[in-house]
């Protein structure tokens, strides 16, 4: 049955594209682009099939389980080698499915956005598809080993995509990216090892079973202090990715220096891996400790919201505004987690998807504006709505989505995250709500100044969207509005998964 292999097919279908590209002569630029873009349709179509076949009444599904590596770990009584089997385990549930689908959608749209790329296209698209494998894998992996492998796999292509195809200071940005993420990975790895050596399993389901069930014989292996330490380590490791203040500066450089399609992917998907990991591994495995830590989650969330928002109001470069805006919006995810209730978790996951769509849309447009004007500095722009009414209109719509306008996805996510937190920490939540005002200030300042107002003479003749540009814009905006008007499309598949996380959490919450 297809269901037994669909996740693997999605995850590794970019490999096919990579192989084809390797055998395509690099002079055939048009062919390479076509293969590179059309190739992303494979995982997209399969992800849509997966979405269509997703069973709302079930939790984990599309499960794959195969023996993979056997590691010799010692001798048994008879003197023969014992092995620890590391299995290839994939599967998906309500929390990861939306993110997988998001990855597929953004994967295709950012590939379309790569149409403008000029240099070394073959390498570019090979790395691009390698990145896709890593992202799909992270959201499908069902054990720590596989998760870590895919998590690391995303770093390498981003490093090169950023370092080779980026803007002026690309190398510095790439190095900084690697340094931070390397440290994050090291911490993550140590935490994983610490979990593994105590519990002798890496499977997510088994780990959750052991860790959240006090009657389990293995459960006693981890003292509450040990667990707390692990949770904090995971929080830092994933926090670097998210990013949380003060580990965010690498991400600013990536946003400014990477080529637009890579920024789309980075901001829309890669940052989300941090939040996903925090939920899937951190909160899911250590609910008691997460609950204990939840005030800190809220505090870090608030710092992110306000720090990002205040800094976004004084930036000169649109890209920097969007980068700080991402920091601010990720703060809302932390608030949703801090709520430790189903509404908050739902808000957090909505925010991951919503911000993914919105930031991809906005970065795409900034790329187009750069393409036309050669700048993304706010003060050098202005009045481009005259000659680019379509792009400008979509930009404004995206900006309104970003500041949480009802009828679009951003509102639902922020509303749910705040609503969840009000149930747990009303004061923190009220402060978080005030952040919405700051968001309005920086979003409107940047977009209105860049797009409206008087038109300088050098910006009077800019071409509006080409068909290749219009497609991603319309699709992204369409999905943003769809989720805003009909949130059940995202919330219904989530319910069963929330059931599996929340009872555990609220069980101790009382």
């Amino acid at each position: 049955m297809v269901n037994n292999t669909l996740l693997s097919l999605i995850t590794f279908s970019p490999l096919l594209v990579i192989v084809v590209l390797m055998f395509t002569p690099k002079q055939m630029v048009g062919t390479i682009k076509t293969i590179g873009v059309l190739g992303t349709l494979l995982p997209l179509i399969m992800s849509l099939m997966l979405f269509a076949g997703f069973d709302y009444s079930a939790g984990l599904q599309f499960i794959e389980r195969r023996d993979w590596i056997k590691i010799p770990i010692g001798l048994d009584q008879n003197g023969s080698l014992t092995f620890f089997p590391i299995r290839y385990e994939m599967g998906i549930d309500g929390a990861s499915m939306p993110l997988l689908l998001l990855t597929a959608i953004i994967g295709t749209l950012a590939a379309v956005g790569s149409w403008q790329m000029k240099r070394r296209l073959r390498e570019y698209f090979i790395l691009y598809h390698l990145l896709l494998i890593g992202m799909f894998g992270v959201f499908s992996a069902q054990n720590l080993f596989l998760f870590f492998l895919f998590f690391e796999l995303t770093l390498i292509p981003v490093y090169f995509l950023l370092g080779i195809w980026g803007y002026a200071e690309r190398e510095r940005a790439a190095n900084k990216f690697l340094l931070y993420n390397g440290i994050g990975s090291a911490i993550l790895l140590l935490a994983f090892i610490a979990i593994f050596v105590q519990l002798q399993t890496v499977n997510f389901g088994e780990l959750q079973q052991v860790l959240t069930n006090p009657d389990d014989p293995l459960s006693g292996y981890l003292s509450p202090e040990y667990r707390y330490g692990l949770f904090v380590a995971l929080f830092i490791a994933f926090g670097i990715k998210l990013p949380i203040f003060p580990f965010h500066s690498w991400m600013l450089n990536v946003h400014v220096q990477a080529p637009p399609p890579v920024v789309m992917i980075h901001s829309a998907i890669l940052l989300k891996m941090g939040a996903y990991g925090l939920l899937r591994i951190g909160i899911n495995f250590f609910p008691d400790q997460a609950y204990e830590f939840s005030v800190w989650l809220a505090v870090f969330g608030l710092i992110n919201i306000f720090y990002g928002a205040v800094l976004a109001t004084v930036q000169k470069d649109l890209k920097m505004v969007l980068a700080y805006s991402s920091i601010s919006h990720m703060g809302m995810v932390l608030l949703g987690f801090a709520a430790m209730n189903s509404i908050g978790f739902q808000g957090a996951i909505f925010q991951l998807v919503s911000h993914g769509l919105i930031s991809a849309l906005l970065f795409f447009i900034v790329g187009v504006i750069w393409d036309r004007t050669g700048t993304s500095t706010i003060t050098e722009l202005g009045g481009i709505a005259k000659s680019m009414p379509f792009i400008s209109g979509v930009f404004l719509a995206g900006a309104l989505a970003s500041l949480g306008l009802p009828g679009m996805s951003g509102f639902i996510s922020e509303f749910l995250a705040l609503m969840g937190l009000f149930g747990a920490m009303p004061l923190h939540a009220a402060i978080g709500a005030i952040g919405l005002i700051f968001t309005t200030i920086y979003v409107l300042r940047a977009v209105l100044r860049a797009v409206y107002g008087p038109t300088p003479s050098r910006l009077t003749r800019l071409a509006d969207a080409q068909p290749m540009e219009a497609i991603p814009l319309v699709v992204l905006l369409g999905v943003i509005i769809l989720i805003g008007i009909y949130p059940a499309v995202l919330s219904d598949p989530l319910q069963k998964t929330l059931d599996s996380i929340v009872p555990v959490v609220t069980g101790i919450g009382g």
Partner: protein
Amino acid sequence: MDTILHYAWLIPLFPLFAFIVLVSFGRQLRGGASSVGILAAALSCVLALVIGWQSYQGAASEKVLVEWMNIRDTVIRVGYEINSLNAMMLVIISVVSLLVQIYSKEYMRDDERVPVYYQYLSLFAFSMMALVLSPNLLQLYIFWELVGVCSFLLIGYHFSKPKAMLAAKKAFIVTRIGDVGLLIAIILLFWWTGSFEYSEIFKTVALGKMEPWMTTLTAVLIFVGAVGKSGQFPLHTWLPDAMEGPTPVSALIHAATMVAAGVYLVAATYPLFLDSQTALDIVAYTGGFTAIFAALIGLTQTDIKRVLAYSTISQLGYMMLALGVAGAIGYTAGVFHLFTHAFFKALLFLAAGSVIHAVHTQDLFQMGGLLKKMPVTGIAFLIGCLAIAGIPPFSGYWSKEEIISAVYSAQRADLLWIAVITVFLTSFYMFRLFFLTFTGKAVSQAISRAKDPSAVMRIPLLVLAVLAVLSGFLNMPFAPLLENWQLAGDVGESIHFAMPEAAELHAPWLSVVSVLVSLAGIVLAYLIYVKKAIAATWIARPLPWLYRLSNRAFYLDEIYRYGLAVPLRGIGMLLDLFDHYLIGGLVQLAVKLANGLGGLHARLQSGQMQTYGLIVLLGIVLLLIGITTQGGVSFGQ
């Protein structure tokens, strides 16, 4: 009787449909765009009038809900509800919306972005109608924000003008401050009552299940939302600037409908306010203060639209004042004034629009003598002025009379003084406006060439003029039709329940006094601006600071700029340095350290990849060590 109330949901759908058509085919339609918008507005207007009539006849309220979203056990529903209050609102919105759209056909004729204009107007009409039809607070909030965005888009319609853009931005941000209050209130109410539905919330309140402090807190937070939307002090500063939008927009959004949404909100959640005297007092005093405060500013403005804007703020203050003093009469008076104000203020704005259209200036001192050139416009404007000044038998007389009577019945002397003084100020600045614009000598060529607009603009003016005269007869002390209509439902019951002893104190002398006070204002304006018997500067000269205070709107904009905006920017700059040098600097240090350790240069192909490789390798070694040492022991079993 088979009631047409079942079809109430169609009312907002006509303009929504027009919006979708205009977004999809606007460019192809060009001139036809206005027809699409007008047709849709006409259809909803007819339906709204029928439904309004049925509701007035006593058709039962109706509510329809469907599931929207589930969060485990929590079901969030959407739908619509029709009751006497929102039936009345629908009539106001659809009538004014239709008239404004017809008027705009001529007013915006030379604009190249007419399809966009009608897109926005249709979206606004849809959102505003859907707002009042909402059966729960969450849905209300959704449309509350959408009308705000439409307002933002239309204020900034002439986006090349920096002033328009800044005004649009300001409107959005300032109203958002209020919106956050409302949002918090909605969420708090949800956690206390388990629902967003009005009826459920009121039930919880009626059963006394809410802590009194929570009732007060949520009511006040809801009112904060209303303060932002309805331009109440201290969040009123966006409304005068919003006059940058096209004048028909000011008539529809910033006079008749959207700015009244705050008043509507307080009325719609009235049972909550009735449970908290503190909240009611805050409403009453904020309203009263805003009424007199805005009137004082209106005295010295020189832009025709800004005078009207401050008068709108002031009149909205009256409505809040009425709601705040409560009682059956206070509630009715507030809602009634909303009703009459919508028509006479829309009339004033559209008449002002005709003037601006003809003379291409908004400066009062560039006008004069227009009554002869534009008699229809002039008389329409005069009717509006008489109505707002509260001269019988014009509509404003009846509603304002009721407000003053409500304040008197509540025995609030301080508020009564404020209300009566504001009557004087209002009639003075409105007639100052009228005299400066329409009487005296023409001061420019544009004026001598000015003439009344064509029928397309005249007809809406005439209809509104008739309404500005007649709409007051709906609720006269001896024939309280509107009161009977509006208090027929649950709200009436909860008011009688909350304050059973509150009776109306009839004081015919009070009515005489307030009319005399109003006439005094008119006479004073006449003496100054027509007879010139009193110098216009008789206060300004000896007390220039007083004049400046009024003219500069008590420097509130400056206070906000230097008290909030500039410090925020300063903090932002400081944080930017902090972020760049300290946080970013730490990284530099770390990079240097890492490079130093490896003894390698920060080169793409060599250095960093190796460092990274080392980390991964180290990790894998650790992993293996972990597996073999720890795992080996317990895997023997």
